[in-house]
Protein backbone atom coordinates (compact mmCIF):
# COMPACT_ATOMS: atom_id res chain seq x y z
CA UNK A 1 0.00 0.00 0.00
CA UNK A 2 1.44 3.30 -1.02
CA UNK A 3 0.83 5.76 1.75
CA UNK A 4 1.46 9.37 0.78
CA UNK A 5 4.87 10.25 2.11
CA UNK A 6 6.08 6.65 2.17
CA UNK A 7 8.86 7.50 -0.28
CA UNK A 8 10.20 10.13 2.07
CA UNK A 9 9.93 7.79 5.06
CA UNK A 10 11.90 5.09 3.22
CA UNK A 11 14.55 7.66 2.39
CA UNK A 12 14.74 8.73 5.99
CA UNK A 13 15.34 5.12 6.94
CA UNK A 14 18.47 5.18 4.77
CA UNK A 15 19.67 8.36 6.44
CA UNK A 16 19.02 6.89 9.88
CA UNK A 17 20.90 3.72 8.94
CA UNK A 18 23.90 5.77 7.87
CA UNK A 19 23.83 7.95 10.96
CA UNK A 20 23.60 5.08 13.43
CA UNK A 21 26.08 3.07 11.42
CA UNK A 22 28.64 5.86 11.60
CA UNK A 23 28.97 5.34 15.36
CA UNK A 24 30.06 1.75 14.85
CA UNK A 25 32.42 2.22 11.95
CA UNK A 26 35.75 2.56 13.70
CA UNK A 27 37.68 1.33 10.67
CA UNK A 28 36.46 4.15 8.43
CA UNK A 29 35.29 1.45 6.12
CA UNK A 30 31.63 1.88 5.37
CA UNK A 31 29.57 4.57 7.03
CA UNK A 32 32.00 7.05 8.53
CA UNK A 33 34.82 7.44 6.09
CA UNK A 34 36.17 10.75 7.37
CA UNK A 35 39.81 10.64 8.40
CA UNK A 36 40.65 13.14 11.12
CA UNK A 37 43.59 14.86 9.46
CA UNK A 38 46.21 15.83 10.76
CA UNK A 39 45.92 13.36 13.61
CA UNK A 40 45.29 10.52 11.16
CA UNK A 41 47.32 10.75 8.01
CA UNK A 42 46.25 8.84 4.91
CA UNK A 43 48.27 5.80 3.96
CA UNK A 44 49.30 6.50 0.41
CA UNK A 45 49.24 3.70 -2.09
CA UNK A 46 52.62 2.79 -3.52
CA UNK A 47 52.14 4.34 -6.95
CA UNK A 48 50.87 7.66 -5.64
CA UNK A 49 52.67 10.64 -7.20
CA UNK A 50 52.82 14.36 -6.55
CA UNK A 51 55.97 16.26 -7.60
CA UNK A 52 59.28 15.21 -9.17
CA UNK A 53 62.60 14.70 -7.39
CA UNK A 54 66.13 13.83 -8.51
CA UNK A 55 67.72 10.51 -7.60
CA UNK A 56 71.32 10.13 -6.49
CA UNK A 57 73.32 7.00 -5.73
CA UNK A 58 75.38 7.29 -2.56
CA UNK A 59 76.65 10.86 -2.59
CA UNK A 60 74.42 13.84 -3.55
CA UNK A 61 77.27 15.51 -5.44
CA UNK A 62 79.14 12.64 -7.06
CA UNK A 63 76.28 10.17 -7.34
CA UNK A 64 73.79 12.41 -9.12
CA UNK A 65 72.27 10.57 -12.06
CA UNK A 66 71.12 13.62 -13.99
CA UNK A 67 73.41 14.64 -16.86
CA UNK A 68 71.57 17.88 -17.75
CA UNK A 69 70.43 16.59 -21.13
CA UNK A 70 67.39 18.92 -20.82
CA UNK A 71 64.94 16.45 -22.34
CA UNK A 72 62.60 16.78 -19.35
CA UNK A 73 62.77 20.56 -19.59
CA UNK A 74 61.78 20.40 -23.23
CA UNK A 75 58.96 17.87 -22.80
CA UNK A 76 57.42 19.36 -19.66
CA UNK A 77 54.00 20.67 -20.77
CA UNK A 78 53.72 23.65 -18.38
CA UNK A 79 57.48 24.33 -18.64
CA UNK A 80 58.15 24.21 -14.94
CA UNK A 81 61.71 22.83 -15.10
CA UNK A 82 64.73 25.11 -15.53
CA UNK A 83 68.16 23.53 -16.08
CA UNK A 84 71.59 25.08 -16.52
CA UNK A 85 74.44 22.75 -17.38
CA UNK A 86 77.58 22.80 -15.27
CA UNK A 87 81.03 23.76 -16.54
CA UNK A 88 84.34 22.45 -15.26
CA UNK A 89 87.32 24.57 -14.21
CA UNK A 90 88.33 25.19 -17.83
CA UNK A 91 84.87 26.33 -18.93
CA UNK A 92 84.06 23.13 -20.79
CA UNK A 93 80.53 21.80 -20.33
CA UNK A 94 80.27 18.69 -18.18
CA UNK A 95 77.37 16.30 -17.83
CA UNK A 96 75.90 17.59 -14.59
CA UNK A 97 73.34 20.28 -13.81
CA UNK A 98 74.53 23.38 -12.03
CA UNK A 99 70.97 24.69 -11.68
CA UNK A 100 67.92 22.42 -11.62
CA UNK A 101 64.78 24.27 -10.55
CA UNK A 102 61.25 22.95 -10.51
CA UNK A 103 58.45 25.40 -9.83
CA UNK A 104 55.92 23.25 -8.02
CA UNK A 105 53.28 25.94 -8.20
CA UNK A 106 53.33 25.31 -11.96
CA UNK A 107 54.07 21.58 -12.01
CA UNK A 108 50.93 19.56 -12.60
CA UNK A 109 52.35 16.21 -11.62
CA UNK A 110 51.76 14.70 -15.04
CA UNK A 111 54.86 12.46 -14.86
CA UNK A 112 55.93 13.11 -18.46
CA UNK A 113 59.41 14.16 -17.27
CA UNK A 114 59.80 10.73 -15.66
CA UNK A 115 58.72 8.94 -18.81
CA UNK A 116 61.13 10.74 -21.12
CA UNK A 117 64.24 10.74 -18.93
CA UNK A 118 66.81 8.39 -20.51
CA UNK A 119 69.02 8.24 -17.41
CA UNK A 120 66.55 7.09 -14.70
CA UNK A 121 67.33 10.26 -12.81
CA UNK A 122 64.03 12.05 -12.25
CA UNK A 123 61.20 10.30 -10.44
CA UNK A 124 57.91 11.23 -8.78
CA UNK A 125 57.81 11.89 -5.08
CA UNK A 126 54.63 11.59 -3.02
CA UNK A 127 55.02 14.60 -0.73
CA UNK A 128 51.92 16.70 -0.32
CA UNK A 129 52.60 18.95 2.64
CA UNK A 130 54.46 21.64 0.71
CA UNK A 131 52.40 24.72 1.41
CA UNK A 132 54.17 27.98 2.18
CA UNK A 133 53.31 31.55 3.05
CA UNK A 134 54.91 33.00 -0.06
CA UNK A 135 53.67 32.27 -3.57
CA UNK A 136 57.01 32.43 -5.30
CA UNK A 137 60.34 31.63 -3.72
CA UNK A 138 59.50 28.74 -1.38
CA UNK A 139 57.58 26.96 -4.13
CA UNK A 140 60.59 26.82 -6.44
CA UNK A 141 62.54 23.74 -5.43
CA UNK A 142 66.24 23.91 -6.22
CA UNK A 143 68.61 21.08 -6.95
CA UNK A 144 69.62 20.61 -3.30
CA UNK A 145 66.00 20.27 -2.23
CA UNK A 146 65.19 17.94 -5.09
CA UNK A 147 68.07 15.52 -4.61
CA UNK A 148 67.00 12.44 -2.68
CA UNK A 149 68.81 9.18 -2.36
CA UNK A 150 68.04 5.94 -4.13
CA UNK A 151 67.36 4.44 -0.72
CA UNK A 152 64.53 6.95 -0.26
CA UNK A 153 63.22 6.07 -3.71
CA UNK A 154 63.20 2.38 -2.79
CA UNK A 155 61.30 3.25 0.34
CA UNK A 156 58.46 5.19 -1.28
CA UNK A 157 58.05 3.24 -4.52
CA UNK A 158 59.50 -0.24 -3.84
CA UNK A 159 58.31 -2.01 -7.00
CA UNK A 160 59.22 0.80 -9.36
CA UNK A 161 62.59 1.33 -7.68
CA UNK A 162 63.35 -2.38 -7.85
CA UNK A 163 62.60 -2.37 -11.56
CA UNK A 164 64.77 0.71 -12.10
CA UNK A 165 67.63 -0.80 -10.13
CA UNK A 166 67.34 -4.00 -12.14
CA UNK A 167 67.47 -2.01 -15.38
CA UNK A 168 70.49 -0.02 -14.23
CA UNK A 169 72.22 -3.19 -13.10
CA UNK A 170 71.49 -4.93 -16.38
CA UNK A 171 72.81 -1.93 -18.30
CA UNK A 172 75.92 -1.88 -16.13
CA UNK A 173 76.54 -5.58 -16.70
CA UNK A 174 76.01 -5.18 -20.42
CA UNK A 175 78.38 -2.23 -20.51
CA UNK A 176 80.98 -4.12 -18.48
CA UNK A 177 80.68 -7.13 -20.77
CA UNK A 178 81.02 -4.94 -23.83
CA UNK A 179 84.02 -3.18 -22.31
CA UNK A 180 85.56 -6.56 -21.46
CA UNK A 181 84.95 -7.77 -25.01
CA UNK A 182 86.52 -4.63 -26.42
CA UNK A 183 89.46 -4.92 -24.04
CA UNK A 184 89.94 -8.53 -25.04
CA UNK A 185 89.84 -7.60 -28.70
CA UNK A 186 92.36 -4.82 -28.17
CA UNK A 187 94.59 -7.13 -26.14
CA UNK A 188 94.31 -9.83 -28.79
CA UNK A 189 95.15 -7.35 -31.51
CA UNK A 190 98.09 -6.10 -29.46
CA UNK A 191 99.27 -9.64 -28.85
CA UNK A 192 98.92 -10.44 -32.55
CA UNK A 193 100.83 -7.30 -33.47
CA UNK A 194 103.49 -8.11 -30.89
CA UNK A 195 103.77 -11.65 -32.21
CA UNK A 196 104.03 -10.39 -35.80
CA UNK A 197 106.74 -7.94 -34.78
CA UNK A 198 108.57 -10.72 -32.95
CA UNK A 199 108.41 -12.97 -36.01
CA UNK A 200 109.63 -10.16 -38.23
CA UNK A 201 112.53 -9.47 -35.90
CA UNK A 202 113.36 -13.17 -35.84
CA UNK A 203 113.17 -13.33 -39.64
CA UNK A 204 115.44 -10.30 -39.99
CA UNK A 205 117.87 -11.76 -37.53
CA UNK A 206 117.98 -14.95 -39.54
CA UNK A 207 118.64 -13.20 -42.89
CA UNK A 208 120.35 -9.83 -42.28
CA UNK A 209 122.45 -9.65 -45.60
CA UNK A 210 119.64 -9.05 -47.99
CA UNK A 211 118.77 -5.43 -47.54
CA UNK A 212 118.21 -4.72 -51.23
CA UNK A 213 115.58 -7.37 -51.64
CA UNK A 214 112.29 -5.80 -52.30
CA UNK A 215 109.72 -6.32 -49.59
CA UNK A 216 107.23 -9.00 -50.49
CA UNK A 217 103.80 -8.17 -49.28
CA UNK A 218 101.91 -11.26 -48.22
Amino acid at each position, binding site marked *: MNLPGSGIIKGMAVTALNMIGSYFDRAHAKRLTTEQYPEERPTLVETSRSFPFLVFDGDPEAGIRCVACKICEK*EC*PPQCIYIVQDKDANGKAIRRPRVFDIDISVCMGCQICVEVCPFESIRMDNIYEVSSYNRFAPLVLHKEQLLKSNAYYNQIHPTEAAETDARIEAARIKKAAAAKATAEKVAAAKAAAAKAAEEKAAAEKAAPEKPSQPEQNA
Partner: protein
Amino acid sequence: MSFQPHTTSLSKANGAGASTLDVSLGPQHPSTHGVFRMNVRMDGETIVKLQPVFGYLHRNHEKLAEKNSWLGSMPYTDRLDYICPITNNWAYAVAVEKLAGIEVPERAEYIRVIVGELTRIQNHTAFLGFILGDMGAWGSALMYAFREREKILDLFEWLTGARMMVNYMRFGGVRCDLPVGWLEKARAYVETYPAFLDEMEQLLTGNEILLARLQGVGVLSGERAINGGLSGPVLRASGVDYDIRKVDGYGVYPRLNFRIPRGTVGDCFDRFMLRILEIRESIKILQQAFAQIPEGPTLNPAVKQRGFKPPAGEAYGRIEGPKGELGFHLISEGGEKPYRYHVRPPSLINLTLLEEMCLGTKIADVMVILGSIDIVLGEVDR
Protein backbone atom coordinates in the same frame (compact mmCIF):
# COMPACT_ATOMS: atom_id res chain seq x y z
CA MET B 1 17.50 45.37 -27.49
CA SER B 2 20.38 44.58 -25.20
CA PHE B 3 19.93 42.39 -22.21
CA GLN B 4 22.24 43.67 -19.51
CA PRO B 5 21.22 42.57 -16.04
CA HIS B 6 24.27 44.13 -14.45
CA THR B 7 22.95 47.54 -15.39
CA THR B 8 19.73 48.90 -14.00
CA SER B 9 17.40 46.02 -14.27
CA LEU B 10 14.08 47.72 -14.20
CA SER B 11 14.73 50.40 -16.82
CA LYS B 12 12.40 50.47 -19.77
CA ALA B 13 15.29 51.36 -22.07
CA ASN B 14 16.76 47.99 -21.25
CA GLY B 15 13.74 46.23 -22.62
CA ALA B 16 12.43 45.36 -19.20
CA GLY B 17 8.84 46.14 -18.62
CA ALA B 18 7.65 47.23 -15.23
CA SER B 19 6.63 43.67 -14.54
CA THR B 20 9.79 41.77 -15.44
CA LEU B 21 12.94 41.36 -13.40
CA ASP B 22 16.41 40.73 -14.77
CA VAL B 23 18.56 38.54 -12.60
CA SER B 24 22.08 37.38 -13.17
CA LEU B 25 22.38 33.84 -11.83
CA GLY B 26 26.03 33.32 -11.19
CA PRO B 27 28.87 33.04 -11.92
CA GLN B 28 29.15 32.24 -8.22
CA HIS B 29 26.16 30.24 -7.19
CA PRO B 30 26.07 26.85 -5.53
CA SER B 31 24.04 25.35 -8.33
CA THR B 32 25.82 26.57 -11.39
CA HIS B 33 28.17 23.57 -11.59
CA GLY B 34 31.21 25.71 -11.93
CA VAL B 35 31.55 29.35 -12.90
CA PHE B 36 28.59 29.59 -15.22
CA ARG B 37 26.31 32.57 -15.50
CA MET B 38 22.77 32.82 -16.76
CA ASN B 39 21.11 36.16 -17.45
CA VAL B 40 17.49 35.51 -16.71
CA ARG B 41 14.45 37.71 -17.24
CA MET B 42 11.51 36.75 -15.12
CA ASP B 43 7.88 37.72 -15.10
CA GLY B 44 7.15 37.04 -11.46
CA GLU B 45 8.81 33.65 -11.10
CA THR B 46 8.32 32.50 -14.66
CA ILE B 47 11.25 32.66 -17.03
CA VAL B 48 10.68 34.87 -20.04
CA LYS B 49 14.22 34.96 -21.45
CA LEU B 50 17.44 33.18 -20.57
CA GLN B 51 20.91 33.87 -21.91
CA PRO B 52 23.85 31.79 -20.78
CA VAL B 53 27.17 33.60 -20.40
CA PHE B 54 30.34 31.55 -20.80
CA GLY B 55 34.03 32.14 -20.56
CA TYR B 56 34.68 32.39 -16.84
CA LEU B 57 36.85 29.28 -16.94
CA HIS B 58 38.40 29.84 -20.36
CA ARG B 59 41.98 28.64 -20.08
CA ASN B 60 42.94 28.79 -23.72
CA HIS B 61 43.42 25.06 -24.02
CA GLU B 62 43.22 25.04 -27.81
CA LYS B 63 45.96 27.58 -28.38
CA LEU B 64 48.10 25.95 -25.70
CA ALA B 65 47.87 22.70 -27.61
CA GLU B 66 49.39 24.35 -30.65
CA LYS B 67 52.43 25.19 -28.55
CA ASN B 68 52.81 21.77 -26.89
CA SER B 69 53.80 18.52 -28.50
CA TRP B 70 51.16 15.89 -29.18
CA LEU B 71 52.03 14.02 -25.98
CA GLY B 72 52.24 17.24 -24.00
CA SER B 73 48.54 17.95 -24.57
CA MET B 74 47.52 14.71 -22.88
CA PRO B 75 47.73 16.02 -19.30
CA TYR B 76 45.77 19.08 -20.35
CA THR B 77 42.93 16.93 -21.60
CA ASP B 78 42.58 15.60 -18.05
CA ARG B 79 41.54 19.07 -17.04
CA LEU B 80 38.78 19.52 -19.60
CA ASP B 81 35.93 17.60 -18.05
CA TYR B 82 37.66 17.32 -14.73
CA ILE B 83 35.16 14.87 -13.27
CA CYS B 84 36.00 12.28 -15.94
CA PRO B 85 39.65 12.68 -16.90
CA ILE B 86 40.09 9.19 -18.29
CA THR B 87 37.45 9.52 -20.98
CA ASN B 88 38.96 12.84 -22.07
CA ASN B 89 42.32 11.15 -22.46
CA TRP B 90 40.64 8.33 -24.33
CA ALA B 91 38.91 10.65 -26.80
CA TYR B 92 42.17 12.45 -27.55
CA ALA B 93 44.01 9.16 -28.00
CA VAL B 94 41.25 7.88 -30.31
CA ALA B 95 41.43 11.02 -32.44
CA VAL B 96 45.22 10.83 -32.75
CA GLU B 97 45.04 7.12 -33.52
CA LYS B 98 42.53 7.87 -36.25
CA LEU B 99 44.78 10.62 -37.60
CA ALA B 100 47.87 8.45 -37.72
CA GLY B 101 46.30 5.06 -38.34
CA ILE B 102 47.64 3.47 -35.15
CA GLU B 103 46.49 0.07 -33.91
CA VAL B 104 45.87 -0.58 -30.25
CA PRO B 105 46.67 -3.99 -28.71
CA GLU B 106 43.75 -5.97 -27.36
CA ARG B 107 44.70 -5.89 -23.70
CA ALA B 108 45.02 -2.13 -23.86
CA GLU B 109 41.55 -1.88 -25.39
CA TYR B 110 40.09 -3.94 -22.57
CA ILE B 111 41.90 -1.86 -19.96
CA ARG B 112 40.52 1.26 -21.65
CA VAL B 113 37.00 -0.12 -21.45
CA ILE B 114 37.43 -1.06 -17.80
CA VAL B 115 38.71 2.31 -16.65
CA GLY B 116 36.34 4.11 -19.01
CA GLU B 117 33.28 2.39 -17.58
CA LEU B 118 34.53 2.94 -14.04
CA THR B 119 34.76 6.61 -14.97
CA ARG B 120 31.22 6.56 -16.27
CA ILE B 121 30.03 5.00 -13.01
CA GLN B 122 31.80 7.55 -10.85
CA ASN B 123 30.55 10.43 -12.99
CA HIS B 124 26.95 9.31 -12.79
CA THR B 125 27.34 8.69 -9.06
CA ALA B 126 28.58 12.23 -8.62
CA PHE B 127 25.66 13.41 -10.75
CA LEU B 128 23.20 11.79 -8.35
CA GLY B 129 24.77 13.81 -5.59
CA PHE B 130 24.95 17.06 -7.52
CA ILE B 131 21.37 17.10 -8.69
CA LEU B 132 20.20 16.55 -5.15
CA GLY B 133 22.37 19.48 -4.13
CA ASP B 134 20.78 21.59 -6.86
CA MET B 135 17.37 20.80 -5.49
CA GLY B 136 18.38 21.97 -2.06
CA ALA B 137 19.25 18.72 -0.30
CA TRP B 138 22.46 20.44 0.52
CA GLY B 139 25.12 17.89 1.31
CA SER B 140 23.64 14.54 2.31
CA ALA B 141 23.13 12.74 -0.96
CA LEU B 142 26.26 14.39 -2.31
CA MET B 143 28.38 13.01 0.50
CA TYR B 144 26.93 9.53 0.13
CA ALA B 145 27.72 9.64 -3.57
CA PHE B 146 31.23 10.96 -3.00
CA ARG B 147 31.90 8.36 -0.33
CA GLU B 148 31.28 5.72 -2.97
CA ARG B 149 33.14 7.60 -5.66
CA GLU B 150 36.24 7.68 -3.46
CA LYS B 151 36.61 3.94 -3.81
CA ILE B 152 36.80 4.24 -7.59
CA LEU B 153 39.28 7.09 -7.29
CA ASP B 154 41.40 4.91 -5.01
CA LEU B 155 41.47 2.30 -7.77
CA PHE B 156 42.64 4.94 -10.22
CA GLU B 157 45.34 6.10 -7.83
CA TRP B 158 46.64 2.59 -7.50
CA LEU B 159 46.69 2.15 -11.26
CA THR B 160 47.95 5.49 -12.52
CA GLY B 161 49.42 7.32 -9.54
CA ALA B 162 46.84 10.11 -9.40
CA ARG B 163 43.22 10.06 -8.30
CA MET B 164 41.88 12.36 -10.95
CA MET B 165 44.42 13.94 -13.27
CA VAL B 166 45.58 10.57 -14.49
CA ASN B 167 47.36 11.23 -17.81
CA TYR B 168 46.89 7.55 -18.49
CA MET B 169 46.15 7.03 -22.18
CA ARG B 170 48.90 7.01 -24.76
CA PHE B 171 48.82 6.85 -28.53
CA GLY B 172 48.45 3.18 -29.22
CA GLY B 173 47.61 1.94 -25.75
CA VAL B 174 47.81 2.89 -22.11
CA ARG B 175 50.74 4.14 -20.08
CA CYS B 176 51.23 1.18 -17.76
CA ASP B 177 49.80 -2.25 -17.15
CA LEU B 178 47.44 -3.20 -14.34
CA PRO B 179 49.35 -3.83 -11.11
CA VAL B 180 49.16 -7.26 -9.53
CA GLY B 181 45.91 -7.54 -7.58
CA TRP B 182 44.21 -4.56 -9.23
CA LEU B 183 41.82 -6.63 -11.27
CA GLU B 184 40.70 -8.64 -8.25
CA LYS B 185 40.11 -5.52 -6.20
CA ALA B 186 38.19 -3.86 -9.02
CA ARG B 187 36.12 -6.97 -9.52
CA ALA B 188 35.32 -7.16 -5.81
CA TYR B 189 34.36 -3.50 -5.80
CA VAL B 190 32.03 -3.90 -8.77
CA GLU B 191 30.31 -6.76 -6.92
CA THR B 192 29.54 -4.49 -3.97
CA TYR B 193 28.44 -1.47 -6.01
CA PRO B 194 24.84 -2.56 -6.74
CA ALA B 195 24.14 -2.58 -3.01
CA PHE B 196 25.09 1.09 -2.82
CA LEU B 197 22.96 1.91 -5.85
CA ASP B 198 20.00 0.11 -4.34
CA GLU B 199 20.43 2.16 -1.18
CA MET B 200 20.60 5.39 -3.15
CA GLU B 201 17.50 4.44 -5.08
CA GLN B 202 15.68 3.71 -1.87
CA LEU B 203 16.72 7.16 -0.68
CA LEU B 204 15.87 9.01 -3.86
CA THR B 205 13.70 7.41 -6.44
CA GLY B 206 10.50 7.00 -4.47
CA ASN B 207 10.87 10.33 -2.76
CA GLU B 208 7.73 12.38 -3.39
CA ILE B 209 9.53 15.69 -3.27
CA LEU B 210 12.04 14.55 -5.85
CA LEU B 211 9.30 13.24 -8.10
CA ALA B 212 7.40 16.49 -7.84
CA ARG B 213 10.46 18.53 -8.73
CA LEU B 214 11.76 16.37 -11.55
CA GLN B 215 8.74 14.97 -13.34
CA GLY B 216 7.33 17.06 -16.13
CA VAL B 217 10.10 19.65 -15.83
CA GLY B 218 12.24 20.66 -18.79
CA VAL B 219 10.58 18.46 -21.38
CA LEU B 220 12.55 18.16 -24.61
CA SER B 221 11.43 16.29 -27.69
CA GLY B 222 13.71 13.99 -29.66
CA GLU B 223 13.69 16.05 -32.87
CA ARG B 224 14.64 19.23 -31.07
CA ALA B 225 17.36 17.36 -29.24
CA ILE B 226 18.86 16.05 -32.47
CA ASN B 227 18.69 19.43 -34.14
CA GLY B 228 20.25 21.06 -31.12
CA GLY B 229 23.20 18.71 -31.27
CA LEU B 230 22.54 17.20 -27.87
CA SER B 231 24.24 13.93 -27.12
CA GLY B 232 24.72 11.48 -24.34
CA PRO B 233 22.17 10.84 -21.59
CA VAL B 234 20.22 14.00 -22.42
CA LEU B 235 19.62 12.83 -25.98
CA ARG B 236 18.71 9.31 -24.92
CA ALA B 237 16.31 10.59 -22.30
CA SER B 238 14.42 12.35 -25.08
CA GLY B 239 13.81 9.01 -26.72
CA VAL B 240 16.56 8.88 -29.33
CA ASP B 241 18.37 5.56 -29.52
CA TYR B 242 21.92 6.80 -30.19
CA ASP B 243 24.93 5.68 -28.23
CA ILE B 244 28.32 6.12 -29.88
CA ARG B 245 29.55 2.93 -28.26
CA LYS B 246 27.02 1.06 -30.38
CA VAL B 247 27.02 3.28 -33.47
CA ASP B 248 30.77 3.71 -34.01
CA GLY B 249 31.72 0.50 -32.25
CA TYR B 250 35.13 1.78 -31.17
CA GLY B 251 37.46 -0.29 -29.04
CA VAL B 252 36.13 -3.68 -27.98
CA TYR B 253 32.56 -2.52 -27.37
CA PRO B 254 31.19 -4.63 -30.24
CA ARG B 255 32.19 -7.74 -28.25
CA LEU B 256 30.39 -6.67 -25.12
CA ASN B 257 26.73 -7.18 -24.46
CA PHE B 258 24.84 -4.21 -23.09
CA ARG B 259 21.56 -2.38 -23.61
CA ILE B 260 20.94 1.30 -24.21
CA PRO B 261 18.31 2.73 -21.89
CA ARG B 262 16.00 5.27 -23.46
CA GLY B 263 13.62 7.79 -21.96
CA THR B 264 10.02 8.28 -22.95
CA VAL B 265 9.02 11.75 -21.82
CA GLY B 266 12.30 13.68 -22.05
CA ASP B 267 11.92 15.46 -18.72
CA CYS B 268 14.41 15.80 -15.90
CA PHE B 269 13.21 12.65 -14.20
CA ASP B 270 13.97 10.66 -17.34
CA ARG B 271 17.50 12.07 -17.40
CA PHE B 272 17.90 11.19 -13.73
CA MET B 273 16.61 7.62 -14.04
CA LEU B 274 18.49 7.09 -17.30
CA ARG B 275 21.81 7.69 -15.60
CA ILE B 276 20.95 5.20 -12.87
CA LEU B 277 20.11 2.64 -15.55
CA GLU B 278 23.34 3.46 -17.37
CA ILE B 279 25.30 2.71 -14.20
CA ARG B 280 23.69 -0.71 -14.07
CA GLU B 281 24.56 -1.34 -17.71
CA SER B 282 28.14 -0.22 -17.06
CA ILE B 283 28.39 -2.76 -14.27
CA LYS B 284 27.39 -5.45 -16.76
CA ILE B 285 30.01 -4.23 -19.22
CA LEU B 286 32.66 -4.28 -16.50
CA GLN B 287 31.86 -7.82 -15.47
CA GLN B 288 32.20 -8.97 -19.07
CA ALA B 289 35.45 -7.07 -19.53
CA PHE B 290 36.90 -8.57 -16.36
CA ALA B 291 36.11 -12.01 -17.70
CA GLN B 292 37.38 -11.44 -21.22
CA ILE B 293 40.56 -9.41 -20.72
CA PRO B 294 43.53 -11.20 -22.35
CA GLU B 295 47.23 -11.07 -21.60
CA GLY B 296 49.47 -9.14 -23.93
CA PRO B 297 51.18 -5.82 -24.52
CA THR B 298 49.58 -2.61 -23.33
CA LEU B 299 51.21 -0.24 -25.78
CA ASN B 300 51.85 -0.39 -29.50
CA PRO B 301 55.65 -0.65 -29.67
CA ALA B 302 55.86 0.94 -33.12
CA VAL B 303 54.67 4.33 -31.87
CA LYS B 304 57.09 6.89 -30.46
CA GLN B 305 55.42 8.83 -27.67
CA ARG B 306 58.10 11.47 -27.31
CA GLY B 307 58.72 13.19 -30.63
CA PHE B 308 55.51 11.76 -32.05
CA LYS B 309 54.91 12.95 -35.61
CA PRO B 310 51.64 11.93 -37.22
CA PRO B 311 51.24 12.23 -40.99
CA ALA B 312 49.77 15.40 -42.45
CA GLY B 313 46.00 15.52 -42.65
CA GLU B 314 43.11 15.81 -40.29
CA ALA B 315 40.79 13.64 -38.31
CA TYR B 316 37.73 13.91 -36.11
CA GLY B 317 37.60 11.24 -33.44
CA ARG B 318 34.85 10.86 -30.88
CA ILE B 319 33.80 8.63 -28.01
CA GLU B 320 30.73 8.31 -25.82
CA GLY B 321 31.83 10.18 -22.74
CA PRO B 322 29.73 10.21 -19.62
CA LYS B 323 28.44 13.68 -20.52
CA GLY B 324 27.85 13.02 -24.20
CA GLU B 325 29.80 12.93 -27.43
CA LEU B 326 33.31 14.08 -26.73
CA GLY B 327 35.20 14.68 -29.95
CA PHE B 328 38.58 16.02 -30.98
CA HIS B 329 39.18 17.66 -34.34
CA LEU B 330 42.89 17.56 -35.09
CA ILE B 331 44.73 19.03 -38.06
CA SER B 332 48.34 18.02 -38.47
CA GLU B 333 51.01 19.29 -40.81
CA GLY B 334 53.30 16.35 -40.14
CA GLY B 335 55.16 18.14 -37.37
CA GLU B 336 55.63 17.64 -33.67
CA LYS B 337 52.90 20.08 -32.75
CA PRO B 338 49.29 20.19 -33.96
CA TYR B 339 48.31 22.85 -36.47
CA ARG B 340 44.77 22.99 -35.16
CA TYR B 341 43.40 21.27 -32.11
CA HIS B 342 39.70 21.65 -31.34
CA VAL B 343 37.66 20.00 -28.63
CA ARG B 344 34.01 19.27 -29.29
CA PRO B 345 32.65 19.74 -25.78
CA PRO B 346 29.43 17.88 -24.98
CA SER B 347 28.61 20.16 -22.08
CA LEU B 348 28.67 23.32 -24.23
CA ILE B 349 26.55 21.81 -26.99
CA ASN B 350 24.11 20.34 -24.50
CA LEU B 351 23.46 23.88 -23.29
CA THR B 352 22.28 25.01 -26.75
CA LEU B 353 18.69 24.29 -25.89
CA LEU B 354 18.83 25.46 -22.30
CA GLU B 355 16.75 28.53 -23.03
CA GLU B 356 14.19 26.50 -24.94
CA MET B 357 13.84 24.04 -22.08
CA CYS B 358 13.54 26.74 -19.46
CA LEU B 359 11.08 29.15 -21.04
CA GLY B 360 7.82 29.20 -19.14
CA THR B 361 9.20 27.32 -16.14
CA LYS B 362 9.85 28.68 -12.70
CA ILE B 363 13.20 29.91 -11.50
CA ALA B 364 13.62 26.92 -9.20
CA ASP B 365 13.13 24.61 -12.16
CA VAL B 366 15.98 26.31 -14.03
CA MET B 367 18.42 24.94 -11.47
CA VAL B 368 17.01 21.47 -11.79
CA ILE B 369 17.10 21.57 -15.59
CA LEU B 370 20.67 22.79 -15.57
CA GLY B 371 21.59 20.09 -13.11
CA SER B 372 19.94 17.39 -15.16
CA ILE B 373 21.94 18.32 -18.24
CA ASP B 374 25.05 17.65 -16.12
CA ILE B 375 27.62 20.13 -17.33
CA VAL B 376 31.19 20.67 -16.29
CA LEU B 377 32.60 24.12 -16.92
CA GLY B 378 36.07 22.86 -17.66
CA GLU B 379 34.64 21.41 -20.82
CA VAL B 380 32.31 24.28 -21.68
CA ASP B 381 34.99 26.92 -21.54
CA ARG B 382 38.14 24.86 -22.11
